[in-house]
């Protein structure tokens, strides 16, 4: 990470101002807090995993095909988001917009799949109120889904700003930070994939 005050051509645009450096560092600290937030939800989920109270169990609910597609969509979106950041470094406005729009489409696909999954579960009688297991499932996966949805709205806002004002220190910082957020959500999903879906299928 560039911490030098001297601006040279190797300093990425998002780090070129004091404001940018502070905000990016602040966002890293915030992500630290987010890790704790999700850790608590994961820990709770593990505690409640077998507390199904006679209701549906993980085995009854999870569908391999569905969560594999969700995973594929979200992991790919992280890759396209990375390509967007790559274009940002090259200061290619069109490239940034195109790759972030692809990211958005993949993200929307993921959220759509997840909503579909939740609606299915509720249809099968697996509601938030059914058992402690389901309360914790919907809370953990739902919190991640809310984060992704918020990220989609956030990216749309920043893309409008980028389209309007081009790539400058401010939009570069915003794109970079939303990229960090998006990759973070991807990492959280990797854990959900493992802890919730794989564990649910195996245990």
């Amino acid at each position, binding site marked *: 990470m560039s911490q030098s005050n001297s601006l040279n051509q190797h300093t990425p645009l998002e780090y070129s101002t004091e404001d940018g450096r502070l*905000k990016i560092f602040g966002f890293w*600290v915030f992500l630290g807090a987010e890790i704790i937030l999700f850790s608590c939800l994961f820990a*709770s989920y593990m505690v409640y995993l077998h507390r199904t109270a006679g209701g549906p169990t993980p085995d009854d609910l999870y569908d391999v095909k569905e969560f594999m597609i969700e995973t594929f969509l979200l992991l790919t979106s992280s890759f396209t988001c990375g390509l967007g950041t790559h274009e940002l470094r090259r200061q290619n406005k069109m490239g940034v917009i195109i790759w972030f729009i692809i990211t958005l489409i993949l993200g929307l696909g993921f959220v759509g799949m997840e909503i579909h999954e939740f609606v299915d579960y509720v249809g099968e009688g697996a509601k938030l109120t059914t058992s*402690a297991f389901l*309360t914790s499932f919907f*809370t953990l996966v739902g919190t991640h889904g809310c984060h992704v949805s918020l990220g989609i709205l956030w990216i749309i806002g920043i893309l409008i700003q980028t389209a309007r004002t081009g790539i400058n220190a401010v939009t570069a910082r915003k794109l970079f930070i939303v990229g960090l957020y998006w990759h973070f959500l991807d990492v959280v999903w990797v854990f959900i994939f493992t802890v919730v879906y794989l564990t649910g299928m195996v245990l």
Partner: protein
Amino acid sequence: MSNIKDYLLHDFFVTGEPMIYMADVSIVLVTIAIVVVLTYFKKWKWLWKDWLTTVDHKKIGIMYILAALAMLFRGGIDALLMRVQLSAPNLHFLDAQHYNEIFTTHGTIMILFMAMPFLIGLINVAMPLQIGARDVAFPYLNAISFWLFFVGAMLFNLSFVIGGSPDAGWTSYTPLAEKSLDPGVGENYYLLGLQLAGIGTLASGVNFAVTIIKMRAPGMTLMRMPMFTWSTLITSIIIVFAFPVLTVALAMLTIDRVFGGHFFTATAGGEPMMWANLFWIWGHPEVYIVILPAFGIFSDIISTFSGKKLFGYNVMVYSMVAISVLSFLVWVHHFFTMGSGAAVNSVFGISTMAISIPTGVKIFNWLLTMYRSRIKFTVANLWSLAFIPNFVIGGITGVMLAVAAADYQYHNSYFLIAHFHNVLIAGTVFSCFAGLTYWWPKMFGHVLNERLGKWTFWIFVIGYNICFLPQYWLGFMGMTRRTYTYASGLGWMPLNVISTVGGFLMGIGFIIMVYNIYYSARYGERDTTGDPWDGRTLEWATTSPAAEYNFATVPEVEDIDAFYDMKKKNKVKEWLNKPIKDIHMPNNSGRPIIMAGFFFVAGFGLTFEWIWLAIAGLVGVFITMVLRSFEIDNGHHIHKEEVERTEREAGRIS
């Protein structure tokens, strides 16, 4: 129509309690008085432009402290009502339900809406000055933090006139706090009020950590920072890692209560003890969040009034780091009686006792700082000196409680009550009063009257000991926590009467302090030098009160106690006469208070389970965020001519 009337009188407004009617009347009268005064003196614009929309860390700090003092008053009234109720057996001054509500609001308010904002206020006032910064890293976010705390506190306080207060204790243990056992909106107020304030605190933690890590004056290495700044840094890191746990716990209980979830219910697979675990995984670090800044304040004050560098600076830092790590590893000691078994209890008992080691190290360092120095007994220093023995009593009884086997006897008795008041009052409250006196001139440009300050000090400290020492014995005699009344044959009355007298003495001390604030504003000695205490750290290097931009030129730091070092090397004049440049400052904004208003609406909606209102509030929050994102805000510059004029008027440059 009669339905609505019926609802308003029976469910919405709290009715049938004379004291609450009195509160209703006083709230209306105070509101009218504020509106009339502001209108009469034409101060609305001043209030809005200079205060409500400010992003200046010093003004935000002052607002935090004012709110905290108001909350200290509210929490103090609750405490006195409890003490009156307990002063004789079989008393029915309060009924059981009212007593439950009052101990709940007392605890919650004192920890979350008094102690923490008071310290965050002092941090806001002093920390950026101590590191030679112009503001915190994110001034706009700082304003959001304050307003979120403020609306959280208001939402919580609204409960006693609208809807009913929470009544499950400040720990809000489940399943008692679940809907089935505690219907009504009281607990929802607790959940949402804390949630809003907690989000604000988390933002403060991020803000302070980034400020300290990234914005120190040139030459101020980490190991040259004032101890208060160090304590702030460590506290901020604890906040960042502890507060999300509270956020999650509150959200989970909200899901249970409002949406019918089963996290902590006694049915459908719920696990009530999960709440206790989550609550204390936040709750124990929380007690260090309110004690470490206190340690920082005492360190700075003791060093200043001993006229010496802090003894064992490095060790002070390491011990705080050790405390911060251990603070996350002791939470089970709050419920040894849960029955985790001997092995688990032993581990947590030992980790708890381990905390006394770094804490003891700090006590010795304070003592050795004073050793062979010419101690000045100012009010700020008196509070610091009183802290040491009183806090040690609380610390020792804490180690007693840490013995898991013995804790089965002490658990939830008045012994525990006495213990944590001994650490929280002698630690946190004394430090708040010490810090308030110490930094008062930096905030307002005049010193608080020392004579009145000493009256407050002696009455409060003596009252505090009279109030809490007997409670150790009451605990041994079997009096349990949250008891609303007791039988006459138990022999508890004499000690309870003594305790109540002590409580009222503390109240008198507080009143004298408030009078002192008024008295000193009118007649107090003006601080024209900016350095009334012969200070050692950089906040004393600027004017009192500090100008908007804090320092005309950023100071350069060469040693610990940067300002003392500068004075010793005769470099102050040289520094003041450095060429002044234009200073970049952030713009004020009205959006933080409006955003917090929407948060309040959302919180109120969820409290009453009016989901449409909650959604409307959250949409408002989202819109204010979008507006912020699309705003082009490059701040503004204070031109060097203006800075030079200000500095000249303060007599700092010729």
